[in-house]
């Protein structure tokens, strides 16, 4: 097999410096001393917000300044915790993600309910520094920690009928007070074509800035699809379903004329009410040009060769 080196790959010598391996030891030791219940369970330890020590640094990187961590964790669209940008941080403080389970269903050989740890642990965690472009015309650069979604999906052995993958966020108005108002049709739903889901850029993310995922950013596990508008990257996932038909998605249900199923970042196709040509990078005053597919065209454009992106926005 010929292995084509992708433009984001970096030499092996840059992967995980020794100091981090050492930190990993400390981390395991810390996990061990926390108590019997947490014994050799780095996930439980991680939920006590210990640093994720062991990951492949800068598996995919960007030559752009990383958004200030404080900004990325205090300016969020996560309507489950309120519609204001500062609401998620405020209202998710006590959100517990212990014993998180994800139900896998539909067109696959291994459906079932999986614990978060069971799902994630078999795979090495990678740091992926991606642009994040919100449909509201602002953007960030975030160092995610995650696993290629494709690796996890393949472990469920999808059948040939699996043409799409649908995702669901937790629906629990007590734990997610924003759901007490029907601003959207809860639970939040998103979906991808199987090709998009299997694309190497698509990840399930469990952390950012070297730490476990903050509640306001979609703890404990969320999707990250860097070439699509942010709302496609569904947070706090509890359901994954392989499906033969295109699944319903929340924003499309709320306003079908404004948010399509694909929702690829596209400066040429404006939102019916505002322009998508430019964006404000958080931390900057003036706007910059928005890039086609958020700058990931080289990697993903071929997925849409047969698609009219003006119609399939």
């Amino acid at each position, binding site marked *: 097999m010929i292995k084509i080196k992708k433009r984001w790959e970096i030499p092996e010598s840059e992967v995980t410096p020794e100091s981090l391996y050492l930190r990993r030891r400390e981390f395991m030791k810390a996990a061990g001393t926390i108590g019997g219940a947490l014994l050799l369970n780095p996930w439980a330890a991680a939920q006590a917000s210990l640093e994720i020590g062991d990951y492949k640094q800068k598996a995919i990187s960007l030559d752009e300044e990383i958004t*200030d961590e*404080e*900004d*990325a964790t*205090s*300016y969020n669209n996560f*309507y489950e915790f309120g*519609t204001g*940008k*500062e609401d998620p941080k405020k209202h998710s403080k006590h959100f517990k993600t212990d014993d998180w389970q994800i139900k896998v269903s539909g067109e696959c050989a291994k459906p079932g309910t999986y614990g978060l740890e069971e799902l994630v642990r078999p795979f090495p965690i990678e740091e992926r520094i991606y642009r994040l472009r919100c449909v*509201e015309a*602002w953007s960030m650069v975030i160092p995610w920690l995650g696993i290629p979604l494709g690796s996890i999906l393949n472990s469920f052995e999808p059948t040939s009928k699996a043409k799409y993958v649908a995702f669901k966020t937790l629906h629990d108005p007590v734990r997610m007070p924003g759901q007490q*108002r029907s*601003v*959207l049709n809860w639970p939040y739903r998103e979906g991808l074509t199987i090709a998009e889901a299997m694309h190497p850029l698509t990840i399930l993310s469990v952390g950012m800035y070297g730490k476990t995922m903050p509640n306001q950013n979609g703890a404990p596990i969320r999707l990250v699809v860097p070439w699509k508008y942010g709302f496609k990257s569904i947070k706090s996932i509890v359901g994954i379903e392989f499906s033969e038909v295109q699944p319903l998605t929340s924003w499309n249900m*709320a*306003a079908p004329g404004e948010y399509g199923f694909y929702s690829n970042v596209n400066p040429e196709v*404006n939102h019916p*009410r*505002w*322009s998508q040509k430019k964006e*404000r990078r*958080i*931390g900057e*005053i*003036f*706007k910059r040009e928005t890039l086609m597919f958020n700058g990931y065209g080289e990697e993903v454009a071929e997925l849409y060769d047969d698609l009219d992106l003006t119609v399939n926005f």
Partner: protein
Amino acid sequence: MWFTAALKSVYAKPVVHLLCLVPFSALLWAAFNDGLGANPVEKLTHETGDWTLRLLLITLSISPLRQWTGQAAFVRFRRILGLYTFFYGCCHFSIWFIADHSLDLAAMIEDIVERPYITLGFSALMLMLPLAITSNQAMIRRLGKKWKTLHQLVYLIISLGILHFVWLVKADYLEPTIYAIIALILLAHRVGPIKRFSVKSFLVAR
């Protein structure tokens, strides 16, 4: 009555001026003290827009307040309030023109023409301009009866302003709905039977 005296006091107008400048000063202070959050431009745009609408609603509540309370002295503050509405509207517009369009006139015009919610907001601001210009005593005298007709544009301005707000919201209509309800009550007062309602006669009748 102390209340009438307060309304008529020489200090009343300066106090209203100061109150109207509180939001502006707070924003200015926040801007220089890293208090505007992750997206300061958006914060400033939203806050100045909110205050334009709020001050416009307060300006519109002067007439009803006068009738409901029987205190004619409320009218003393109407011009100040109207002018501050215009001031916040100008701030709102300037931030958008500078930060969103980098002072690019062509891009700004394109946005005004192509985006209905911006068309509405911009029209509302433009309609405020003649009202601000004709707000002094000399103009009131010069225009005579026409002045009142001209200043009835304010009803169109508040409607455009609220639609501007409604139209830019993604999913949560709570806030614009509250503004719309208040505006409807204030406008209904001008046509409906509540016009003749007064607190005094209400209390006397009992």
